[in-house]
Each structure stands twice: as structure tokens, then as C-alpha cells.
């Protein structure tokens, strides 16, 4: 059957009813035939807009042409020149507002499914054992990367390809940052995808030292003074959870999304075999409307709960990706919009028994253009539940900034760094990703890691 050029080749997904009960990946991806059919839709624009929409500037038309010709290896190497984590990005990037948002095809019909094609290329390369190409010459200079999340892995991968001797320091027992503790298995498989992608970064010569908490186990100053690192990239993320400071927040059954997701994803508590416990709620309220809220909600659902998302603004304002909201709805997550918790109610044993909320309405737009929610007086109501997951955003952990002399931070405790090259106020120290911007997206962190790698190379080449 000939494909209508205006419509994208649909991607196969697990049935919503089935997937709501398991942790298997929701989106099954393209097969070769589907991928090539979708690649055919690319117009190979001479002045490609899609590349401008990609924070790490992947040569998109080039890899799609190579794919069209059936040369997956070439397509993979083209992507690898710009991205260390294509199997991850193809899955979790908000393409609709990046590469695909700029695609010319999208003006009249569906944009080319660039993300799904990138994913196909990366997955196929992995199945065929194709590795990214490493550095031809060594520079003999040591660079330390703090944090093995998307920013750190990208920065490390780029530096290794330039010939630097790179060591990543990771506080947890597993590398990957939010890719391993935050994003659930059903969106991003850990063993099959994340682990393999990190092994590819290691295959470039990057060393990863786990269980090292910078600021505690060793300081940045000591890495530079005593261990011979000539430059440092800080990609430590924004992992400090916020709570609402409402009554009842210490009740048993109130969790930060970070805790709930870390237990499930990093510690595998979703599996019955895990030694790490997790609460399996019957009825759960998730507070917040971002991607993390969707992940927490869909995780709780898979653990057997009826899940309500409580968000203070309306559907239009949900900060989560459209696709995630749709997936959540299909799976049966209930959205209680325009309401906000004011108190968590506990039973006599200290366990959560409900969440008292108040209705909200949207007021006038503020300076940022967002309409701020205002409480409707006297509209309180209760949602009966046995768990509440707070997903209100996170801020950078002050551990590194408070233990590194001369590293400037702003009032939100974010490290101040130059957007162009990642330079901080401290000589030889660069930073990027959520540690600089506060919680944002995987691909923006990768873009910052890339910019900093360039900045570090310039600094060390002087």
C-alpha cells in the first residue's frame, strides 16, 4: 500500500489496557520497512530547518538519506557525530517543539517522524553491534565530568572523541542520571537501551567512577589540585525535590516523585523480586502537571493504583509533553484540573487517608504570559486516597556549589555559566544542564554538555 506523503507512518504501540498492567515499553518503534517508508517522506531540504530545531544540531537530512539508501551504519555514524545518546533522544525528546516542530512537511501535513527514525537507527545499530567512532589521536589531558546524566554523558562523549582523557564521577551506583532513576522503564528501557548507550560512551574511552559524591568524597578543588584534572564539567543536575509545606505532608504515604521513581526505576522496586520496598497504593493523588508527574502517575497505575493527577492550572497549561498526557489518559489516569491540595489528611495511625483540595480559576496573564491560578473561596473538597506523590519540580543540589570555592550561583542556587561555552566564574570549571538552568529537558542538557565540551577544548587548546 502506497503511503500518503502527508501522513506519517504510524508507529506500533502496546495496547493501552495491556500496557497499563506492565512495565514493558509502550512504543514499539518502527521496523525496517516502516522506517524506510517514513524516511522517503523527507524532502532533503537544501536549507534544513529541522537541524536548527535540534539542540545538538544532528545532520538530520543526511542521516535520513543514508537510512533511505538502507545504510544504517552510515546513518548511525552521522548521528553519533552530534549525539552520544540517540536511542535515548529518539524516545524522550519533545520533538514536536524541536526538530519536528520545524520540519517543512509539518506545514501542510505531518512532520517527518525524525525522533522515531533516530530511534530506529540507534536500535538497529545496537542490534548489529555498531559502535561510535572514537578519537584518532590522544591529547594527553585529563578532564573530570561531574554527573553521568545526559549533560555529563554528552560532554564526556564529545571530549573523548576530541582525544581527551575523561573520567565521569557519579554519586549513585548506576550511571545515567535521570535516565536511570527518573524516566520509567516503560518509556526508556534500562538494560536494553540506557545501559547499552552508556557502554557506547565508555567504548570511546570514557571512564566512569561510581559511588563518588563530589563535595563529600572529594572536592572539585582537590580533583584539579591533587588528581591532575585540567578542566572540570559540572553536570550534576537539579535533583533536590520541593514539597508544598502544607499540613499533613509528613504523613505515611506522602512521597516526592523523585523518591517514588528512584525506588521503582533505579532500585527496580516495581519488580516483586526487588529487595527495595515501594508502597503500592490503592488510590493515589499525584500533584503536578509536568513530565515527571506523568511518569509518577503512570508508575503508580502500573503498581495497581487508581491515579488522580491534581494540577492547579488547566489542560492547555499542562507542562508535560502532549504524547505523555495522551498516553496517561489512554491508560486511565484521571485528571483533576484547576485544583490544588491545601492539606493532606491522615488517619489515626498516621497514614494518608485523603487529600483536601481547593478549586482554582485562571486569572490574568502575568509577565511571562502564563495565567496564574487563583483559589476559588469556599470550594474545598476531599479526594479519598492512601498516597500522595509530590511532583512540583526540583532545584539544584547545593552540595557542589557550597563546597567549591569561587563558584558563583544565582539566587535559585543554579550555577552561573555562559550559555555559549559553559564557562563558570571559576577558572577551568564549566557547567551545563539542569545544574545551570534548573529542571529542563534531556536534550537541552545534552546541548549544554556539547557546548561545554567545545568550551573546554578551546580553553585547553590555548
Amino acid at each position: 500500500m502506497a503511503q500518503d506523503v502527508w501522513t506519517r507512518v504510524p508507529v506500533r504501540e502496546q495496547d493501552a489496557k495491556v500496557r497499563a498492567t506492565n512495565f514493558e515499553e509502550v512504543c514499539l518503534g518502527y521496523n525496517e520497512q516502516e522506517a524506510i517508508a517514513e524516511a522517503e517522506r523527507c524532502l532533503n531540504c537544501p536549507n534544513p530547518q529541522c537541524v536548527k530545531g535540534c539542540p545538538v544540531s544532528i545532520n538530520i537530512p543526511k542521516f535520513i538519506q543514508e537510512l533511505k539508501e538502507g545504510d544504517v551504519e552510515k546513518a548511525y555514524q552521522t548521528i553519533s557525530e552530534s549525539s552520544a545518546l540517540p536511542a535515548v533522544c529518539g524516545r524522550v525528546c519533545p520533538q514536536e517543539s524541536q526538530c519536528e516542530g520545524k520540519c517543512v512537511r509539518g506545514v501542510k501535513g505531518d512532520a517527518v517522524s525524525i525522533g522515531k527514525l533516530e530511534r530506529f537507527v540507534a536500535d538497529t545499530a545496537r542490534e548489529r553491534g555498531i559502535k561510535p567512532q572514537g578519537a584518532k589521536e590522544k591529547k594527553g589531558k585529563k578532564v573530570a565530568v561531574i554527573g553521568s546524566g545526559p549533560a555529563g554523558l554528552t560532554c564526556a562523549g564529545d571530549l573523548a572523541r576530541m582525544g581527551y582523557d575523561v573520567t565521569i564521577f557519579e554519586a549513585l551506583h548506576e550511571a545515567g542520571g535521570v535516565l536511570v532513576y527518573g524516566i520509567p522503564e516503560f518509556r526508556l528501557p534500562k538494560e536494553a537501551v540506557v545501559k547499552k548507550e552508556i557502554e557506547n560512551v565508555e567504548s570511546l574511552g570514557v571512564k566512569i567512577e561510581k559511588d563518588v559524591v563530589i563535595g563529600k568524597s572529594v572536592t572539585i578543588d582537590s580533583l584539579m589540585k591533587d588528581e591532575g584534572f585540567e578542566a572540570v564539567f559540572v553536570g550534576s543536575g537539579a535533583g533536590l525535590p520541593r514539597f508544598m509545606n502544607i499540613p499533613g505532608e509528613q504523613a505515611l504515604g506522602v512521597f516526592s516523585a523523585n523518591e517514588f521513581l528512584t525506588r521503582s526505576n533505579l532500585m527496580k522496586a516495581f519488580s516483586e523480586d526487588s529487595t527495595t520496598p515501594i508502597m503500592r497504593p490503592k488510590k493515589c493523588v499525584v500533584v503536578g502537571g509536568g513530565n515527571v508527574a506523568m511518569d509518577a502517575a503512570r508508575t503508580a497505575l502500573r503498581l495497581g493504583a487508581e491515579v488522580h493527577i491534581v494540577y492547579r492550572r488547566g489542560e492547555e497549561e499542562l507542562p508535560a509533553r502532549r504524547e505523555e498526557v495522551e498516553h496517561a489518559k489512554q491508560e486511565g489516569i484521571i485528571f483533576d484540573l484547576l485544583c490544588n491540595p491545601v492539606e493532606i489528611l491522615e488517619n489515626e495511625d498516621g497514614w494518608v487517608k485523603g487529600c483536601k483540595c481547593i478549586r482554582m480559576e485562571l486569572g490574568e496573564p502575568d509577565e511571562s504570559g502564563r495565567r496564574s491560578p487563583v483559589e476559588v473561596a469556599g470550594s474545598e473538597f476531599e479526594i479519598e486516597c492512601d498516597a500522595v506523590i509530590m511532583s512540583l519540580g526540583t532545584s539544584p543540589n547545593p552540595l557542589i556549589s557550597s563546597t567549591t570555592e569561587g563558584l558563583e550561583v544565582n539566587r535559585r542556587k543554579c550555577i552561573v555559566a555562559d550559555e555559549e561555552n559553559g564557562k563558570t566564574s571559576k577558572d577551568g570549571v564549566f557547567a551545563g544542564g539542569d545544574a545551570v538552568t534548573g529542571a529542563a529537558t534531556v536534550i537541552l542538557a545534552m546541548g549544554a554538555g556539547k557546548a561545554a565540551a567545545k568550551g573546554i577544548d578551546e580553553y585547553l587548546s590555548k
Partner: protein
Amino acid sequence: MFKVLEANELATNIHQLIVEAPRVAGTCLPGQFLIVRAEEDGERIPLTICDYDREKGTVELVVQALGAESRKICRKKAGDCLADVVGPLGNASDLCSESIEDLKKKKIVFIAGGVGTAPVYPQAKWLKEQGVECDVIIGAKNKDLVILEERFKSVCNLYVTTDDGSYGREGMVTKCLQDLYDEGKRYDHCVAIGPMIMMKFVCKLTKELGIPTIVSMNTIMVDGTGMCGACRLTVGGQVKFACVDGPEFDGHEVDFDQAMKRMRLYQTEEGRLALKEQEGDTHHGGCGHCN
């Protein structure tokens, strides 16, 4: 992987491990703790540091076999490895940042209960190294559960008390402190480390006696670096994370009832029964399940 160089059973179910962990040994200070996993598929659990040797790059852990993970850790023999030893975490004891002159003027008492005896040792030892004297009260259920006695004797004035009077003085640590007070001992500073219920009652007493008291909060933890808030507690009306804001806090400001309640989070009726069966009479508290 972190190599176990030495493993000994100090008392029933209480094991001592000397582990190669050069980064931890290089920077740790009294008051800090570790997150440990025995095996690759294990749970992350917080453990205290009992001693360290910067030259040799080793740390000493004292672990009570209570849950699945601590049991696995206690089964380790010399030559085995622990999958993960992360740290040092948390803040060093406030004592470490005080001037030595000020410390020398203070009468300091440490109160240690059960396996909480282990983290008191590096503090007393550190003070001894600075030429500061201190008193230490160790409380144990019975004679067989008194640990580290000889090592304490070399760094402080030691008082041992057992619940059943089978060794040393008789009664709980609070009785011992009251008795010392009645015997004319006066203290300017108290540090209490042990089961939450013990710390709660020590604080109640020291408040009456007017002794500023620091406690080390052994809450549930996951990452131990401030990213999840599992360890949150209320101190002076403010929410704090024990792993990054503590573990030491002003004991007179801690909401112990809430903290003890939160320890019950993953305790199921079944778990409690299993524990009772496994532990029998030897169970001495400090596990967070028996409050």
C-alpha cells in the same frame, strides 16, 4: 566494588567490617555516614562509620543484622566485596568545627545505645586526638551486647550500663545519666546516638537537666544525597532532610514522635512477625521496627 579486608562478629548479630574505600577514608569526619549495598541487586542502606584509617584507605563499619541487606553485609568474609560504599555523607559533627580551646572548657557526655555505640567511637577518638576529655555512657540490653568497650576505654571515661544489670551499672542510659548527675557530674554538652526511642528519652531528660543535646537521626534513606526526601523530618518546625541537613540535629528541637512514625513506612505486619521470629530475645532495638 569495595573489598572487605577484615570481618568479625563483635556480639550476636553485630558485625565489624574493615573495608577498602580510599575516597571515603580520605575525607570522612566523625558524624558522617555511608550508604552501602552488599550486592548488585541489593537495597541502599545507611550505615555509620565506626573508624577510619586515612593512610591505609580503609573504613570500619559496625553493622547489626536486621533486614535483608544488613544480613547480607554481615555474611561478608575477609576477601569478599561490597557492591557499593558511598560517602562520606551528611555533615561532620559540630564539635569538629569548634575551636579546641572552647572544647577543652566543655564537659561533654556521649550517650550510646545498641549499635549506636559505633558512631560515637570516632567522635570520642577525635576528641582524644585533640586533647579533649569526654565521658561516654554505653547502654546495652545485656553483657553479651556490649561492644567496643576496650577501644572506648583508651579514648574516654567510660560508663557501661546494661538493662538487666548483667554488666556495669544497671538500667537504661537515662538512668545512668540521672545517676551521674545525682553523683554530682555536670555536663555542658550531650551527644546521644542510638534507637530513636532512646534519643527521645535522653532529650527529655537533658532538657530537664538543662544540657544542650545533639542527636544523630537514623531515618529511612534511599540515595543519601538529598534527592528524594525519604529521610525528611521536622526540626524546630522546619522540614529537614537528615542526609544533607543532618544527620545530627538539636535533639530538643526534633519531632521524635513524627520521626518514629515515619520509620514504620515499610514495616508490614508480616515483616514485624518475621523479625520477631528471627531475632527472638537478642533483639535490642535500633532497627526502627520495634518502636
